[in-house]
């Protein structure tokens, strides 16, 4: 605990922590919409496309002026979005190809401009390369105000146009038929995502920024089935990943914050994909296993009832070996034990034989009959 207190005593750590958490929350909230609208990769293209804007902003301002750098990044992103729109609407290329082309061309232009800017030298030009992977320590108190302002604006928009954003994300054609200004609403969502990317460039960098949009949303979707729940949870996971990444980075020398934040957010996705109730892989595997066990148990019951009927004796004691033969393999002791636990069969002795024998209980007979007639079972159950 004292380690944490020591960390938080540092002004820089507090700033980075607040910045990373804020960015995570903004990206998480907007990322939920981007993922639901299947625009995750647009975010990636916008992030990569921001690099030439960053460099141009630097070259024009003649120094590392955050305002002009962010403005440049935003304009370059907008240009990239426009280019993608034109390619998909005017040519026969599909969206994925258009995304790939725009992403790589803009990024290549950015890297060229980066070397130009660095060749020109000047104080701080070396710091430009940090926009590739982000440098959290470079965050200033004043940057937090910018991020906070953008975050609040995004939150206000999402709250104000909640039902419109929901409908446009789910069914844009229907929204258009209702007469909502779909193009404007979609553009607003995309611009907000671009803003989130721009504020994240310093911290996470153009290459990894998209993970912060996708990962919290993908993780959140696993746990909730309402849009409100998903957006809130996504923002929370983003904020927690940001904060955790900042703390881990601060407590260990030489670990970059941005990539750590991305790794932690991705870990949250992994955990969510595995264990989330209902949708998680482990959950589904368990459900499948349970279903298999039920079927296996049902076969044991049916075989025993068949033997009991053949003998005209409801209390007929079935020998384990007979069951194994009837079912083409020994019913595992675990399965028989499970049936016994459920009160459907009980172990009996059948002298003079010494091998284990089993008989159906009354409940077992009822269950076997119900399994044989699933339609009747459905009618009986409410």
């Amino acid at each position, binding site marked *: 605990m004292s380690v944490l207190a020591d960390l938080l005593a540092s002004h820089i750590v507090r700033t980075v922590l607040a910045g990373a958490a804020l960015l995570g929350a903004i990206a998480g909230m907007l990322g939920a919409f981007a993922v*639901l609208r*299947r625009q995750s990769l647009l975010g990636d293209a916008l992030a990569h496309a921001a690099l030439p804007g960053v460099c141009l902003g630097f070259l024009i301002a003649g120094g590392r002026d955050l305002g002009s750098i962010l403005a440049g990044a935003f304009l370059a992103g907008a240009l990239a979005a426009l280019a993608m729109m034109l390619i998909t609407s005017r040519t026969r290329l599909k969206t994925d190809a258009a995304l790939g082309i725009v992403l790589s061309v803009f990024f290549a232009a950015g890297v060229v401009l980066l070397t130009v800017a660095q060749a020109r030298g000047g104080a701080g030009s070396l710091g430009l390369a940090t926009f590739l992977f982000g440098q959290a320590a470079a965050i200033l108190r004043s940057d937090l105000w910018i991020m906070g302002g953008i975050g609040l604006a995004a939150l206000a928009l999402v709250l*104000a*146009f*909640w*039902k*419109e954003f*929901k*409908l446009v*994300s*789910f*069914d844009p*054609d*229907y*929204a*258009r*038929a*209702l*007469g*909502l200004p779909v193009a404007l609403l979609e553009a607003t969502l995309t611009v907000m995502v671009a803003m989130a990317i721009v504020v994240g460039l310093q911290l996470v960098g153009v290459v990894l920024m998209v993970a912060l949009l996708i990962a919290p949303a993908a993780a959140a*979707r696993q746990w*909730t*089935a*309402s*849009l409100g*729940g*998903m957006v809130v949870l996504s923002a929370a996971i983003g904020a927690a990943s940001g904060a955790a990444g900042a703390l881990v980075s601060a407590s260990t020398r030489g670990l970059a914050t941005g990539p750590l934040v991305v790794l932690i957010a991705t870990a949250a996705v992994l955990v969510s994909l595995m264990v989330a109730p209902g949708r998680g892989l482990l959950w589904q595997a368990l459900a499948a296993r349970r279903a298999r066990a039920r079927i296996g148990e049902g076969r044991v019951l049916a075989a025993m009832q068949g033997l009991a009927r053949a003998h005209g004796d409801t209390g007929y004691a079935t020998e384990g070996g007979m069951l194994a033969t009837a079912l083409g393999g020994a019913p595992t002791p675990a399965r028989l034990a499970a049936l016994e636990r459920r009160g459907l069969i009980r172990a009996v002795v059948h002298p003079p034989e010494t091998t284990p024998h089993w008989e159906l209980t009354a409940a077992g007979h009822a269950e076997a009959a119900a399994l044989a007639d699933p339609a009747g079972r459905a009618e009986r159950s409410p």
Partner: protein
Amino acid sequence: MDDHSLHEPGHALHVEDLTVSYGGGPVLWDIDLDIPPGVMCAIVGPNGAGKSTLIKAALGLVRPVAGHVRFFGRPVTRMRGRIGYVPQRHSVDWDFPASARDVVEMGLYRSLGWFRRPGAAARARALAALAEVGMQDYADRQIAQLSGGQQQRVFIARALVQDAPILILDEPMAGVDAATEEVIVALLKRLRDAGRTVIVVHHDLTTVRSYFDWLVMLNVRIVAQGPVARVYTPENLRATYGRQLAMIAAAPDDALP
């Protein structure tokens, strides 16, 4: 609004000279179409005939290169919210985090106006619409957990809740089971009997005569339109479907009275 602004107000749907092209040849060519109020109308035609495009163009979702569309004499922009639209079920991602009631409430989003969230009244209307399609017990069910037929009914409830005089449905019977189809058809007939105009893109010729009273046969251009009894003829079917007719001609519907 004065009546001078209306053009052909006597028709629920009036389409004139409508031509749509996606850059290549025409998808719809010189469509002239009139559907009177209070009918249940099927739009049929082979794959690629432009059935969905026709209703999308009518709704203003696709921009035509020529022609105009009027609903009760008004352009679609002045009928917004008063046309219930049921898109093809596969046009959306059903894994979207929403319940059946959430989706139905979307039909009220426009009438609610900006900045207002659906409240108790909207909830009650959504539940009533779900009850109309026999889905009241599934109001809080995740849409991903509904069967295809149930999803289709939720989509129809979303259009019903708009309380619109015109309903336009794009293949509502595609991929649903017989029981659901029965429910949907009974519901649409009820709406028609209550004076609504119901326009359905339909793919199953065998049921055209038992379900519908008005028919539009389409294959890029209009082949025939009018009351089913007059329009559903072998010549028109051949003109619409061409070679595919061999299969269709064997359809048992001809045996109906």
